[in-house]
């Protein structure tokens, strides 16, 4: 069964958003991880961290403040 989790890293400084994403992905092994961030830098870092770990990433924008990165494996 594939698990689905959400991680909210809004407002956190570097490197916490990418670090927490990486930790969550390692824990999850397989499934879907949704990460919410309000920073364009973190958006790029989270996407890259996911791809480096072999996950596919899809980025959408909820509103002016929030990016939603969907990582799946």
């Amino acid at each position, binding site marked *: 069964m594939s698990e689905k989790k*959400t*991680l*909210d*890293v*809004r*407002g*956190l*400084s*570097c*490197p*916490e958003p*990418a*670090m*927490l994403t*990486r930790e*969550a992905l390692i824990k999850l092994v397989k499934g879907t991880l949704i990460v*919410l961030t*309000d*920073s*364009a*830098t973190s958006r*790029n*870092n989270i996407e*890259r*961290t996911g791809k*480096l770990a072999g996950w596919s990433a899809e980025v959408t924008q909820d509103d002016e*403040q929030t990016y939603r990165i969907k990582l799946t494996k």
Partner: protein
Amino acid sequence: MHAISKFLTSRWGPILTGIVVGVLAPLLVKFGNPGNMGICVACFNRDIAGALGIHRAATVQYIRPEIIGFVLGALVAALLFREFKPRGGSSPLIRFLLGMFAMIGALVFLGCPWRAYLRLSGGDWNAIPGILGLFAGIGLGIVFLKRGFSLGRSRPTSPVAAWVMPVFVVVLLALLLIAPLFGRDADGNPVGPIFFSQSGPGSLHAPLLISLAAGLLIGFLAQRSRFCTVGALRDVVLLRDMHLLNGVIALLVAAFLTNLALGQFKPGFEGQPVAHTNLLWNFGGMVLAGLAFTLAGGCPGRQVFLSGEGDADAAIFVFGMLAGAGVAHTFSLASSPAGPGAYGPAAVVIGLVLLSIIGLTMRETRSA
């Protein structure tokens, strides 16, 4: 425009930024900046603090246009690409302290991470213990991060807070151009501030427009590419990600080749410009600075760029650096070419203890 942005946020962004910094910094030395100090975010903020009279070390007082350019270049990039976001409220007082101690550590070594790499590229081998110290400080910071250290979340805030730093540097530019004398001596004669060094490193500078243009270009590129000399090593260790490290390697190679081409590569330990040969405190100073930058989330350059894109917490860090320069040069903490200042080593030890307490105790419930 979209294509430029895509390129700069790709893996080539930090590399291009590193190359531009690596070429421009030695050129700025050629045009008049101090030796191996084409760009030094710590030294330049220290010079600005001196010009404003926050310290009275007569040899290091000048309003460095590069820093003004950094902020405004990042501001333009952030506005252009809709990334200017007013935010703040993530442990501002602690960030001020981190900025202070980052500056104190950097002034014991005599340079920020940018200058450490630029010194190495110019053949100053005293930079090697400094860079090893930087690695150690970043490593210590990573240990704290892994244990759950966090300065907490920032929140969206008023645009007024976001504009404080851009307006501050515009005021600095005006003070640089007009050079008013605000002070009065005992007889009522006008004296500085604004102070400008008549001798020493503060008196050495490239022409204003060249410095400003170089700063603007680097600020613009670095805002887009997220160039960071501390994130470089941190991300390799923590995330197995070479993205930012490639930028630092590009900087080193480009600066080495440019120094070679300009006849500025002079290998050795002795007689290096604005440097001392004390191995232990070149190392120790940068342990403190590296730890402070890692806890604050990025190198001094990165903090300056963030302060230009609306990050009030990064702006607080930069103001902390100005205050730290005041403390370092008033309390004999800063080194000179003769060696560490009288109380520099003690300040490094105190700083390490204080920052370790911060690193061990500050946490945040980080997941939703």
